[in-house]
Every structure is written in structure tokens, then in C-alpha cells.
């Protein structure tokens, strides 16, 4: 790991590593946090995570429904945006192709027959 590179890239000064939680009392008062979830304080703190702190696997779990409400909106937004982009692309493509085809047929109709031969 090149520490100089990391220092240069994340030059916000020292702070707690990713996942550092506030004390248990504070956490229990925060309705948005479920047990086991450590909220970070901001972008600079997140950016200073070492590679060892990154997730290296996804583990299947059951339960923990209480925490999912906020995530619902994020997932709906993500899938919604994906479908919005898709429909825009399909609509733009078919509209443009229809316009082009119409222009081409009109042009072919107007051209004298002998001029279309190579």
C-alpha cells in the first residue's frame, strides 16, 4: 500500500476510520440506526478508510427489517432511474429511426428511377 499516495489523495487530516461509531448511548438515541450499523460523519471520513476496512464479501442475513425502510426509497429510486433512462433511450432511438425512415422513403419517391442505380 502506498501511504504517500493515500496521504496525497486524502489530505483532509486525521480522523476516525470508517465504521467508527459514536458511543452506544448516542447510537441508541438515533432512530435511523439499527444495531450493528455504524454511520460515518462525512465524505472525508469515508474517504480515509483503509482498503482493509472495505467490504470484501456480502453475507446473506435474515431479519433486520427495522433498518430497511430508508433503503427501500434508495432502491426504488435506483431502479426507477434505470427504467427512466432505458425508456428515454428507447423512445429517442425509435423516434429518430422513424423520422429517418420517413425522410428516406420520401427522398426515394422523389428521385428519378435511373439516378438511384449505381
Amino acid at each position, binding site marked *: *500500500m*502506498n501511504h504517500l*499516495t*493515500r496521504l496525497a*489523495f486524502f489530505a483532509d487530516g486525521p480522523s476516525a476510520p*470508517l*465504521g467508527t461509531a459514536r458511543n452506544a448511548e448516542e447510537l441508541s438515541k438515533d432512530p435511523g440506526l*439499527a444495531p*450493528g*450499523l*455504524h*454511520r*460515518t*460523519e*462525512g*465524505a472525508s471520513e*469515508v*474517504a480515509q*478508510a*483503509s*482498503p482493509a476496512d*472495505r*467490504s*470484501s*464479501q*456480502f*453475507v*446473506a*442475513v*435474515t431479519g*433486520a427489517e427495522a*433498518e*430497511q425502510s*430508508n*433503503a*427501500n426509497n*434508495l*432502491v426504488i*429510486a*435506483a*431502479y426507477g*432511474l*434505470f427504467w427512466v*433512462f432505458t425508456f428515454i*433511450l428507447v423512445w429517442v*432511438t425509435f423516434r*429518430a*429511426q422513424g423520422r*429517418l*425512415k420517413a*425522410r*428516406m422513403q420520401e*427522398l*426515394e419517391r*422523389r*428521385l*428519378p428511377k435511373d*439516378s*438511384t442505380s449505381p
Partner: protein
Amino acid sequence: MTGSKAIYSALCGASALTMLGLFFATFDYAPLAQLGAGGFAQKIFYFHVPAAYAMYLSGVVCLIGSAAFLLKPSPARDAWARSGAEAAVFFGAVVLTSGPLWAKKAWGVYWTWDPRLTTLLLSVLVYASAVLLRTFVGNGDAEKRFLAAFGVLGTVNLPIIHLSVRKWGGNHPTVITKGGGGVSPEMGRVLGFGFLAMTLFAILILWLRARQAMLEHELAELEERGMDALEQ
């Protein structure tokens, strides 16, 4: 029905079915991930990662079309370079919008100047600038060469995006790459299906956009010949 129309119809059907299947597999079959990975928000993973892969695929098509066009210009090569760039912008936009929404849950912030995010944004901006130029400036030889040059430049950046996590660290998970702990078997199956669905979708988009670019070229040729015929 001609051969290409049959293939096109089959591709449309297969793409629609696999995308629908991916949707149901994500919410019905794939288990919830741990909260550190975003919990329910980790469901975004099943199209976020395949979309990133589809962007790479589009970038490769753009690179091949662009390099071939720079070596020996032809309308077909330009069409594939253009469609590759357009598809890369589309999939890049999907990745750049879905990623931050997942990151909000997993990292606590929508955006951080993580090396992979930064290099991906750079690549999408390169492709977007090429597409915008072609859309608003025109289809002259200089514009075609410009798009081809940007197509090569944008794709050269793609391996940097891929390797940036290993080289410079950052927050991006290293789940399915070398050194990662992997995903559960059910998650792996859904992710694999996601790759299949997004590959078919990318091929469909590339084909559609290339066909449109070819039609535009044919129309321009026809108009030119029409003008010549009228002048005679």
C-alpha cells in the same frame, strides 16, 4: 421475415425476458445482505455491477470502431464507434446514479472522491463529450475523427477504472475481484443472471444505435445523389 429482423426480434424478446427475470430474482430470490454492505440497498448491486460491465463492453466496441475508423474510415466503423460511445454514456449514467444511492446506505454519503468513482466519472465525461459533439455539431469528417479519438481515449481509461481499487485503495468493495470474500451462492447466481441480462441489453442498444447511425449515413448519401440528379 429476414434473418437480421428475426435475430433482432429474438434479441428484443430475450433481453426483455432476462431483464424481467433479473428484477424478480433480485427481490424474490437473492437474500438480504449484511447491513455493512447496505442491507436492502445492496439489491442495487445486481444491476449496478452488470451495468458497469456493460459500460466496459460498450467501451470496447467504441474502441474497436474508433481505432478501425482512424486506420481506414468507413460509415460502418463510424456507426459502431458512435453507438459504442452512446451505449457507454447510457450505462455510465446508470452506474453513476445507482452507485451513489447504494453508497448513501453503505458508506453514509452519496459521493466521495474514491479513485474508482473519479476515474469512472472521467471516462463517462469523455464519452459524453464525444456524443454531444456529434449530436449538436454534425457529421463532418472532422467530427467523426474527433469522436474516434475520444472513443480511444475514453476506453484507454477503462482498465484504470478497473485497477484503481487495487492500486489506490478507496472505499469500493472488492467482493468479486481478486482477494474478495465473494458472495453467497444465491447472490452469485443472481449476479451471473444480471451479467447475462445486461449483456443482451447492451448488444441490443449497440445494434439499435449503430443501425440508426447507418440509416443517417444512407440518408445523407441519398440526399447527395438526389441533389446531383436535380442539378443534371
